[in-house]
């Protein structure tokens, strides 16, 4: 029932292909690892951005994550999805940095969101407005809320995959998602 609309690969990526690339890298082919970087740079960057809310930090964390993955490639257990593994590293690295920073600097909120061009001008404007409001609302939410919403709605991860990444059980995933959505709806209603 998931819509494959996110151009960047995420939880819906080809697992076998990833395993082959990891194996090739382990046998000395660095291009194979570059292919993994190309494939996962966007979801990893998004994950880091939605935890840290700063492009600069997301850039740094993305570099750290891929280099760490390269160093530990021999520790990768192929019975798990490669994406789950790398995403978990990205989440942990981002949370570590957030804990260390503990700053409440001005958050980045300068992204122009275009409307759906196939819709009429009025609907286009309202869809873009809603997307802008959602983004703004999400920026004000707690890290755990942002994290589950990003995993589910931006990276299209299943409950099971989210449980693996966040190292919690599926029931907790469901509950956290529900609460995050309820709070998000509350924020949007406040702005009406």
């Amino acid at each position: 029932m998931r819509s494959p609309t996110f151009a960047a690969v995420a939880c819906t990526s080809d697992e076998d292909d990833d395993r082959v690339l990891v194996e090739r890298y382990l046998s000395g082919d660095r291009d194979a690892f570059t292919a993994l970087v190309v494939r996962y740079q966007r979801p990893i960057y998004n994950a880091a951005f939605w935890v840290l809310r700063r492009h600069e930090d997301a850039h740094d964390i993305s570099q750290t994550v891929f280099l760490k993955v390269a160093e530990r490639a021999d520790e990768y257990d192929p019975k798990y999805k490669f994406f789950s593994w790398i995403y978990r590293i990205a989440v942990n690295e981002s949370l570590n940095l957030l804990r260390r920073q503990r700053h409440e600097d001005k958050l980045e909120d300068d992204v122009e969101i275009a409307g759906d061009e196939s819709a009429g001008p009025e609907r286009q404007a309202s869809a873009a407005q809603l997307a802008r409001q959602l983004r703004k609302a999400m920026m004000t939410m707690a890290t755990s809320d942002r994290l589950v919403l990003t995993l589910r709605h931006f990276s299209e991860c299943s409950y099971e995959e989210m449980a693996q990444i966040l190292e919690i059980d599926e029931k907790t995933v469901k509950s956290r998602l529900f609460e995050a959505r309820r709070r998000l709806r509350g924020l949007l209603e406040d702005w009406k």
Partner: protein
Amino acid sequence: MTQKHSPLTELMHAVLDGEASDAEARELEMRLAADPAARVEFEGWKRLFEALGAVPKEHAPEGLVASIAAAIPQAPGAAGGASQPFPAQRVLGHTLFGVSRRAPIRSVTMTEQTTRRIFAHRKAWLGAGVAAAAAVVVAQVAFDFPLAKDVVGTVIPAQRYRAAQNGSEQVQLGAPAVQAAPTGTVPDASRALAEKSAAESALKADKAQTELKADRMQSELKADRAQSELKADRMQTEMKAEKAQAELKADRMQSGLKADRVQSELKADRMQTEMKAEKAQAELKADRMQTEMKADKVQTELKADRTSQQ
């Protein structure tokens, strides 16, 4: 603070997340059909899910892939990794910390295990250096190079290194000092320098090649992404058209159904009217018959009266 949520809402979320079984989806359908309030709630959640799906994703900055690709170390288990001119972790650390403005912070993020690995390599290199220096000292002490006794006058070994500028007349034939010069480490050092420089050039070339490759891959990815987005747009348009068609069809069906219903009702009305008319006719007929019978009876009685009077 968490709010207790109803199992029905949970079911709605599971269906919208695509995590519900067919039976659960059917159950929700039935419950929505029976409960208008639940339908309103479901529509609200559905709108939120759709809006979340429409929030544009962040784009990774240009050059991210190239910067990572240039710093990718040799795979931990790959053969030949140890023969690199620099340990992989050093290259990695150098690029990572050299580029970023927040290098000291990031260095803290390195795991203990990684740090230990880096230090282990450093220790090995340091150990090798110390051993080499010790060997040179031991060699100098242990061997008696016949320098002073076979060389007369100026310091010939120093002149050897300017041989390219000197004439052949300055070459002192048979001078054993040439072979025994303790400065024999100088050409070794120069060779090592040249080797190091060559290794660095090779590394630079390798890095440039990797960056080029990464750029190419990025371009391909961009093209793929554009294609996918185009495809998705087209699919969306087609889906929209299909949806519009379906709605039109549904409207038409609904209109057709409505017309049928109106026709049926009209027919029923007509039938009812006709039945009513028939009934009225029958009653009228009955009335008339009754009246005629009554008249007949009256006539008969009158006749009988008249006969009896006569």
